[in-house]
């Protein structure tokens, strides 16, 4: 292994500092006693206490979690089906449109996705009376739609890198296609499905713009609540909330990285 040039090492150092210093500062300031969030007023955990007493935040967080759990699960089911279809069936009617619809939601600007889904819900309501009100259901549908694309891509690339011969052998031995699917294909792609579910869950928790379009009065998700607060500037209880999220996510990612490294 050749030594890296000094230029590369310094760009790497700068790049990682750029990515992580802002997050580290949020963590530090969350323990700041001062109400003016960027002036240091001594160590304190008071903002964590205020956070836990803030019912609006807790309600919003609970709604977001419910949406994320539901939409990630539906997205994993449909996304897996789509991934298998794309990887295993080379030719079927409308395949090009299908694969286009799978990849487009991932890059579509959120304002367009949000606007178009809201207009769909409004038109459906006029025609059929459903959805009577917008909130949990409509946000869940919206999140499922863009998240299933990610699941499909992950499952598809896992299947593409895998040998088809196992499935073929099971079929040759007389296994019913459904049986082969549940006994062979699904166990093999389970890691991809789990990864897809986690990604879908995170994307749902993360989304602000699409949820703002398709939610109705009275249903605020956590990002919507955070946005309405930080619009007005830096706020100490949001620092505390951000710290909790940063610490939770980082320890999760770090842990799974360590586990994966030990295995290889």
């Amino acid at each position, binding site marked *: 292994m050749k030594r890296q040039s000094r230029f590369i090492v310094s760009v790497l150092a700068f790049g990682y500092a750029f990515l992580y210093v802002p997050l580290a500062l*949020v963590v530090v300031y969350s323990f700041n006693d001062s109400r003016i969030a*960027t002036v240091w007023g001594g160590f304190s955990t008071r903002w964590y206490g205020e956070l836990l007493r803030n019912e609006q935040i807790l309600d919003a967080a609970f709604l977001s979690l419910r949406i994320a759990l539901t939409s990630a699960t539906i997205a994993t089911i449909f996304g897996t*089906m789509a991934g298998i279809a794309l990887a295993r069936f080379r030719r079927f009617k409308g395949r090009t449109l299908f694969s286009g619809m799978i990849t*487009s939601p991932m890059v579509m600007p959120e*304002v367009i996705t949000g606007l178009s889904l809201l207009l769909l819900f409004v038109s459906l309501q006029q025609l059929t009376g459903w959805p009577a009100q917008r909130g949990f259901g409509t946000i869940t549908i919206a999140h499922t739609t863009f998240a299933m694309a990610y699941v499909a891509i992950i499952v598809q690339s896992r299947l593409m890198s895998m040998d088809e011969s196992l499935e073929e052998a099971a079929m040759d031995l007389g296994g019913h296609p459904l049986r082969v699917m549940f006994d062979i294909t699904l166990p093999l792609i389970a890691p991809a499905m789990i990864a897809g579910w986690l990604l879908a869950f995170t994307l749902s928790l993360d989304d602000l713009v699409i949820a703002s379009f398709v939610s109705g009065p009275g249903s605020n998700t956590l990002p919507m609540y955070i946005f309405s607060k930080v619009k007005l500037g830096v706020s100490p209880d949001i620092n505390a909330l951000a710290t909790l999220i940063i610490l939770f996510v980082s320890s999760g990612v770090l842990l799974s990285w360590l586990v994966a490294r030990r295995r290889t």
Partner: protein
Amino acid sequence: MWKKVLIAAPYLWLLLFFLAPFAIVLKISLAEPVFGQPPYSQAMSLDNFAFLFSDKLYAVTYLRSVFMAACATLLCLALGFPMAYGIARSSRATRSLLLMLIILPFWISFLLRVYAWMGLMNNYGTINSLLLWAGIIDQPIQLMYTDFAVFVGLVYSYLPFMILPLYASLERMDLDLVEAAQDLGASRSRAFWDVTWPLARPGVIAGCLLVFIPAIGEYVIPYLLGGPESLLIGRVLFDEFFVNRDWPLASAVAIVLLLLLVVPIVLLQRYQARDQESTA
């Protein structure tokens, strides 16, 4: 039978919740705004599009959005390329750690990552405090609510999208090729531009598209970090819809934005399809 179900279920879902909505946006973009619920008429005309093209504000905003997104893409490339190169060239153990650290921010709320910069860049924020303390400036400089802040936010949020595809193509590259070129007398820059760059090009294209496409329609970053005069098209669409409640015009703005993005989105899909085939 089961094969049909496997295809039909996700297919129908996407037709209903992804494709059909665009048809509705198109239809409403041809309507007129009226008072009432829903606030648009059944009329059909191209008035909204005529208005978009006649009012300078919109043309300027589209151009500004494309320009800002293009600059942010180039900045991401300038920072991301040497980083991806460094990661691909490091030892196996460090490489996996460095990659994990690139992916980790993905899992942390996008909104909170943008928010983190508000504390850094405001007039009494960390950067100004440090510069004041060091005596480099004697009064706070305006960082927040400027285009500079928007660029920082865009590069910060989208950098991982640039690094990952770059890394993927640099990692696949055969290092011996560069050494061979240098052994044969090519200068380092010649070897870079004639060997490394062409081999990295698929990653460069994918990374640039993955940054450029979402950056054009970005709403949160310009809203939180940009000034009131730095209008970008994502925010214009949002305001047209929520503040002015002009649904037809908002739809027309969305359709034009979509038309702008058709070429880059198709390019990205073709690239990804080719990439899937080459790895399979």
